[in-house]
């Protein structure tokens, strides 16, 4: 089920809220677990089995680690291997064996990572192994963040699941966050995606400005798509009484690539830092080892995003940029005089846009054509691209405005009115429902 659908917003969500309101405390968690399974299985019932398998595997592994200390290491690696095998089978088999196609359960990369984090945290003794299946199952399948994060840790969520209750503050704040996210998705990301889908078809004839416009449209699409989803997830969690972590912090205002990755998909970066980078030695074993660790983490980060070599290339691209910043570029940016403070931001944005060009094209020939289109070719805009660019100008401005925190500085009464208007516009867009993909569902 999609958050951005009428059936979710006006039927599923009210039913879940009503259930949480009317049921006794003891029944709320099982109800939420069942509701989450329904949410996940709505369009793809078979995928529920894959998720239940992951839940069961992590749950039993944690119990085994706790119950059999001498063999805890074996259980840890066995469970991690099995969870990664499930992920690899569904996501990467086609990459290794051409022509081998397996249906990809939505959000599998997110819930397997949460399950791995849980097992590792139990192994490290940071949290207790859960004795009841329902709370752990609800954590993994919790519908607000099941499909596209934020990637949470059980130690943060478990205490909140114990006291689920609806409250007026939670509902008001949650409604606000959800509406902001829904608006980002429907009113900004989807139109930008439509423009990108057109411009990506013809990099050879768009001209250099047309191709940069296209990649800018994609940059807006992926940001508002993903951060919109995260906002909706946080809003829904808040309505149900669960606080989820912030996943995006205005990444396009970043002053360096390092800063960008502190602001973009924060919970994924935190996961890789906690469960890959630091166990590999982090920055504690000298510079060469640190650079290797960065390379390894970013190759894996790229691969996490998709079963295609362009994602690995994208990860390595960021490994290179982050290495350069670590070696000298950050210091160079900091040494700039005050009047040139815009330069690092501009350079970061250009690096990020080039990165999105790599990210967006899984076909090497298309990627080559897209990169050539960004760097070579005429400066003139063909008539149709010019028409689209000019017509889209209000949307580009709206996107730019939504990339900075300024709109949140409006007085509360203006925000209340704006939110009501946005809800009406989103409902209208949902009724029209033409183009509505979620980019991060495939990850």
């Amino acid at each position: 089920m999609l958050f951005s659908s009428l059936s979710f917003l006006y039927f599923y969500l009210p039913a879940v809220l009503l259930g949480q309101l009317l049921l006794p405390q003891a029944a709320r968690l099982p109800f939420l677990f069942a509701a989450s399974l329904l949410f996940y299985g709505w369009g793809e019932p078979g995928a529920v089995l894959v998720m239940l398998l992951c839940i069961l595997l992590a749950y039993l592994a944690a119990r085994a680690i706790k119950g059999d200390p001498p063999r805890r290491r074996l259980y840890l690696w066995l469970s991690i291997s099995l969870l990664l095998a499930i992920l690899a089978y569904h996501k990467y088999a086609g990459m290794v064996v051409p022509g081998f196609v397996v249906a990809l359960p939505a959000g599998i990369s997110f819930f397997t990572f949460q399950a791995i984090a849980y097992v590792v945290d139990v192994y490290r003794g940071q949290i207790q192994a859960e004795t009841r299946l329902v709370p752990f199952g609800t954590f993994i399948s919790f519908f607000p963040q099941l499909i596209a994060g934020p990637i949470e840790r059980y130690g943060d969520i478990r205490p909140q699941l114990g006291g689920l209750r609806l409250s007026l503050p939670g509902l008001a704040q949650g409604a606000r966050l959800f509406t902001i996210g829904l608006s980002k998705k429907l009113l900004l990301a989807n139109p930008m995606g439509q423009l990108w889908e057109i411009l990506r078809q013809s990099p050879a004839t768009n001209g250099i400005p047309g191709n940069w416009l296209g990649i800018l449209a994609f940059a807006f699409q992926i940001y508002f798509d993903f951060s919109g989803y995260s906002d909706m997830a946080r809003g829904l969690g808040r309505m149900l009484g669960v606080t989820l972590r912030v996943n995006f912090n205005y990444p396009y205002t970043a002053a360096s690539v390092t800063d960008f990755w502190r602001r973009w998909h924060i919970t994924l970066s935190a996961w890789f830092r906690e469960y890959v980078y630091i166990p590999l030695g982090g920055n504690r074993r000298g510079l060469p080892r640190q650079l290797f660790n960065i390379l390894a983490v970013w190759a894996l980060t790229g691969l996490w995003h998709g079963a295609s070599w362009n994602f690995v290339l994208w990860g390595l691209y960021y490994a290179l940029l982050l290495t350069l910043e670590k070696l000298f570029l950050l210091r160079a940016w900091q040494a700039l005089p005050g009047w040139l403070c815009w330069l690092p931001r501009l350079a970061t944005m250009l690096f990020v846009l080039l990165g999105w060009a790599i990210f967006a094209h899984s076909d090497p020939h298309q990627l080559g054509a897209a990169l050539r289109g960004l760097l070579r070719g005429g400066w003139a805009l063909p008539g149709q691209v010019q028409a689209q660019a000019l017509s889209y100008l209000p949307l580009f401005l709206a996107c730019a405005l939504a990339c900075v925190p300024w709109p949140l500085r409006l007085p509360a009464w203006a925000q209340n009115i704006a939110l009501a208007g946005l809800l009406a516009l989103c409902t209208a867009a949902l009724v029209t429902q033409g183009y509505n993909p979620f980019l991060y569902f495939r990850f």
Partner: protein
Amino acid sequence: MDYRRFLPYGCVFLAALVLLPLLFLLTPQLEYSQPERRYLSPPPAFRWGSGAFSQAVEDHVNDHFPGRLALLRLDAWRRQLVGQRVLDPVWRLGDGSLVEAPVDLAGTRLRDNLARLDAFATQAGLPACLMMPPAAGAVSHQAVFYAYPDAEVEEALPRLVPNLRVVPLLAAFRGAEPPLYYRTDPHWNARGAYLAYTRLADALGFAPLPASAFEARESAGFYGTTYGRSALWETPPDYLQMWDPGLPLRLRFGGEDRQHASLFFTSHLQGADQYPAFLDGNHGLSVVDNLSPGANGHLLVLKDSFANSLIPLLAPHYARISVVDLRAWRGAPGDILALGPFDALLAVYSLSMLAGDSNFPWLR
């Protein structure tokens, strides 16, 4: 954050979550949407384990959501205001007219369809003409900026169909006094059809009748297909224009024994989409017999719906016009030419049809 600041919106949100589902459940559901001219999705039948069921639920909820038409209109205006409309299939021009967006020629059947048409003309061995009605947006001075491809295609047509004589229309249409098209429909109006008819006269070898030779009739309340796809419901209706040659004639549809004494079917004027008033819409084969003494000649017309308002203007010049619409024609090879002998062949196809229609293989 102080939650009380957003309490007013929280109340609005919760009210919407309660009231709209209730309205959906309590209000009677329509089967047909008159402004959009389409049937709405029925209640979904449960099918276990199939994504089709969840999709059917989505479709049903979308089609019957409370205030749906108003919401469609709100969304249409939003897309209009933010510029997203440039990617929609229908554009609203500055004068309020609704036109089809330019045809995107990438990956279309244009060359293949034209090749089939050219091969058929060769096989027929007849004097053959091709006329491509320009899109309304390509003619409108308000929309020339948007680079409709009609001009470049019209210029390329003589090379693409060497066995047909191409009757160019774009320059004449751009130079003529508007309106030549309906404001709520993609088709040309009677003045547009008449202009095309005069351009055709030389190619087909007849002297065009003056406009005054036709009896002009109008029908108010015409909401065409661009209106239905636009969701801009406040757009005022147009007048459907019918120019009647006032001849004694007989019209037959393929496969039907019934004969009609008029080319205009006024029963369609009661509905919102009145365009089927011409020739009763699109039939696989329509045969128009001019019963006037001295009429002679047999014209074969291969066409899309632009030709429907042109046929009444051509009727005085032929004893018989056989009109084939490939979208509804399912004859065997040779069946079209077996309707002859013909004296001439006329193909009338808009660019959107040439680029998108998959029925040209029936032309054999």
